[in-house]
Structure formats: structure tokens, C-alpha cells
């Protein structure tokens, strides 16, 4: 499976990381050598194997329906890049 420039552009869009043409070229090389290495898995027959869903051999533990978290608005907004007392502020989505 080779990764071409078109795929790089597609993945970069999905992962919201902008990639200029120069970077994309380098990525193409890097990713292809990594994928060559990963392709090794195709040597194995795994049709009847169950995937490992959890390493921890236990079931999901429940939490009770109590409200424990208080109003920590200040803490929540403290690290926000755009200062606003009540909201997170982001540039508008293009319509």
C-alpha cells in the first residue's frame, strides 16, 4: 500500500494539520517507509482471531448518579487562549 500526495492531503485535512507541498513530499517518503514496515502484518492469518478489546481483564466499573463536580468556571476558562469571563471564544466557522 503506497501513500500518495493526494492521500497525504486527505489525511492532513481529517487530522486538521496543514501541510505545505514541501512537507507533504517529505511525509510521503516517511510514511511510505513506515507503512512498508507495517505491511509485515499481512503475513499473518487472523480470520478467526478475536481482537483484543481490553488488556485489563475486568468489566466497566459504574459510578453513582451524584453531582460531585461543582461550578469551576474560573478553572475551566483559566487556560483559555482568548480571554472571556464566560465563554470559550473561537473564530467563526465558514458558512
Amino acid at each position, binding site marked *: 500500500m503506497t501513500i500518495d500526495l493526494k492521500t497525504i492531503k486527505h489525511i492532513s485535512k481529517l487530522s486538521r494539520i496543514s501541510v505545505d507541498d514541501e512537507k507533504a513530499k517529505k511525509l510521503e517518503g516517511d510514511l511510505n517507509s513506515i507503512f512498508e514496515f507495517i505491511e509485515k502484518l499481512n503475513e499473518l492469518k487472523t480470520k478467526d482471531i478475536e481482537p483484543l478489546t481490553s488488556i485489563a481483564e475486568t468489566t466497566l466499573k*459504574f459510578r453513582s448518579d451524584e453531582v460531585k463536580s461543582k461550578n*469551576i468556571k474560573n478553572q*475551566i476558562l483559566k487556560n483559555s487562549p*482568548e480571554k472571556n469571563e464566560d*465563554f470559550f*471564544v*473561537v473564530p467563526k466557522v465558514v458558512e
Partner: protein
Amino acid sequence: MNKENSEYLILRNKNTYEVIIGLEVHAQVTSNSKLFSSSSTKFGAEPNTQVSLVDAAFPGMLPVINEFCVKQAIKTGIGLKAHINKRSVFDRKNYFYADLPQGYQISQFKYPIVGEGIVILDMPNGQKEVGIERLHLEQDAGKSIHDIDPQNTLVDLNRSGVALMEIVSKPDLRSPDEVNVYIKKLRSIMRYLGTCDGNMQEGSLRADVNVSVRIKGSDKLGTRCEIKNVNSIKFMQMAIHYEANRQVDLIEDGKNINQETRLFDTKKNETRSMRSKEDAHDYRYFPDPDLLPLEVTDDFIKKIKSDIPELPDEKKKRFIEKFKLSPYEATILVSDIETSKYFEDVIKESDVKLATNWITGELFAVLNDQNLEISKSPVSSKNLSKLINLIKDGTISGKIAKTVFEIMMDGDIDPQKIVEKKGLKQESDPKAIEALIKKVISDNPEKVKEYKSGKDKLFGFFVGQVMKASDGKANPQLVNDILKKKL
């Protein structure tokens, strides 16, 4: 549009199209805290005051599941007569949006907690079964506010992480009317169960509507479009109507229908394509590695089952069998849990037939008029019951009762007190009525002559005069009987 046998069909140039509708309803789970964090879920709080570190997706934060939300989902599944999956998995649905702090939504993709079920609709021309495909639990997103700041979008994460049940129907719906009944039925079931309050104004219930069309008689499904996030039944119906016609027009023009996501513009009453959403929606679902698979035991499910109250379908059956109500009456009385509670309260102490008529008649008229829910009824079930008993034991006539009812509305006054205070007790003493009748007859000799000579219609006149003389309090039945004898 043609209503043939009350079917919803679209006619165009000799072609008859039917509309195939599937709904994905998002119902907010009634719970104190969120699905994976212990923040409050209360509606209407100041922005970002019900947000925990987990909700805001700070580094290193991890989800911990709320047992009660799991129970609520299973309960709802039981109410939908659906299969409960003892093992289900939470998956991450990956996409970027300002109100999605994690950059993914924790949902269930391949293995939902509830499987197939059915919802029965009471339509005018009989019952219809609508299939449920599945129900799963997922996180709600926060709110993006676009219209406060002209340059920016403001984000409130209070709603981020609240538990949602996504209920996916099979594409069994065929008309806006059916959609109306379906949503109401679904809402009713959840309100009966206490798993969702169904308050559409507060956003507790929203739906994505999938619409496609096909030539009637074809068994192939057409390309569908999804209309996202419609938050009222009226809008759903309008959206379906617009969209179905849009698709038919395209087909008739020989064009293809693009499978796409659309929005319903409530100002223009039309659907339009969501250009801002990415064309490639690759959610890259995979099992959330921060959560283990969810496993529930038979006992766990059994306990929830034992907690289920009588649901609308069963209640309706019982009302028809036990109280001899008509299917129509029964449907109305069970349609909402508050209504059925009210009815059952009233009939504890009073006549079923009268209760049925008064609730579905007078009371509903008032509630509709004042735009009130029955839980906010100006007349309590207790007092309505009393009123009905006063009619039943002859203390007042049905007509007087209407007057009393109007007075009761102003502060839920005890009808007994009103009758006493205003002296509205029905006059049922035959001697007293005889006296009144005698006076009326003696006061109107010409009319008596006319009546006796064949003008039967004048009987009503005499009844009216007697009623007037008695200030409306004479027992109408007695007046009739005695007047007949006297004339």
C-alpha cells in the same frame, strides 16, 4: 400531494411517489449527572458553570460511566419492546468542532446497548408498527453560539457530556402525520418511564430526519438525505414536505439525488445543503481504549424490568377492557403520563364516563386555550372529581356544572363551596317544580293554547321559562317529566 386512503403521496406527471422516512431521535437522558462525568445536567445554568475537567477534555482526564444512565437506556429499550444487549462497546466518533472538546464523541457504533424493537402507532385508519433498529448511549456536545459576537463563535460546554439516547427507527414511516404520531408516542413512552422528559423547547428531544422517495410499488430504496437537528414536530413535518418534493422534482428532471446532509431553514421553510460540513465525513470509529466493554447481567436487567410502570399500550388495553372506553377515548387518555395519572386520580372516586367526557372535553379545551400542560391544570383532579360527583348525585345539573367549572378555574376552588356560596343547588323537589310549572302555565295562557293545538316546539319554551324562573336550578329531567304531565 394526494391523500388517497389517507396515504401521503406525491403526484407528478403521471408518476406517483411515496416518501420513505427514518428518524434518528436524540433523547436527553433524565439523570442528575452526565454520562461520563459527575457534573450537573440541570437546564438553564449560566454558561460553563456545569463543566468539569473531564467535560472540557483537559489533558489526562478520563471518562467514568454513570450507572443510572445505563439503567435508563435499558429501561427505554424495554419500553420499546427491544432486545437488550448484555455486552456493548463504547466507540469514539472522531471529528473536529468547537463544541466537541475531546475532538471525538464517545458513542456506540458496532455494539449498541439496545437492539431491535417496535413502536405501535395509533393512526386514524388503524394501528401501525414502526420498527426500531437500535438504541445507543452517547455524549451530547456543547453549544456554539454564533450570534452574540459578530467576529467569533462563543462556546458553552454545559451540555458537553450529557447522556443522550439515540433511537434509530427503521425506514418504516411514510408521512408527516406518521412522524407526528411516532414522535409523540416515543416521547410518551419515555415520559412514562421517566427516562427522558421529552421537552423539545429545552432541547431534550431532537431528531435527524432521513428522507427518500420512490415510485409507489417499487421495492428499492431511493437515495436519502439527512436533515439534521430538527427540534420541533412542526418543523419535522415541514422539512419532510419540502424535502420530499425537492427530491421528486429532481427525479422528474432526470437529475440525481446526492446523498447529503441538510439543514432545515426555519425562516425560509426549506432544506438546504450544509456547505460548512466537510464533504468527507470519516468518523474513524474505534473502541474507546479508556473504557472497557460494558457488560450487564440478566439480574441487572430483570431488576430494571420489575421497575417498569404500566406503559401506554398496556394501559390503553386495560382502559378499554375495564372501563369500557372507546379506543379513541383510551388513546387520548393514555397519550401522556400526566394525563393518565390525572384521569386515574379522578376516577378513583367518581364516574368513569363523566370523567372521560369532562377531561377530554371541558378540561382539554381550557388547557389548549391557555396553553397549559395538564400538570399545570388550574383545576386539580381532586376537585374535578368532586364536581363530577355533584353532577352524578344530582346536586347540580350538567349545565350548572359548566358554570361552576369556570369559577373553579380561578384558584382551584372546591366546587362544593361554590355551589353552596352561590346557591346553585339543583332544585329536585317535585312539589317545588310543580309550583313553578303551575306559575309558568298560568302566566302564559296563549302559549298553552298554541301548544295544545299542535305547536309541539313550544315545549322548549315552557322548559326555558321554568328554568328561568328557577334561575337555572330546576332539575331538567324532572321539569321535563312534570311539564309533560301538566300540559
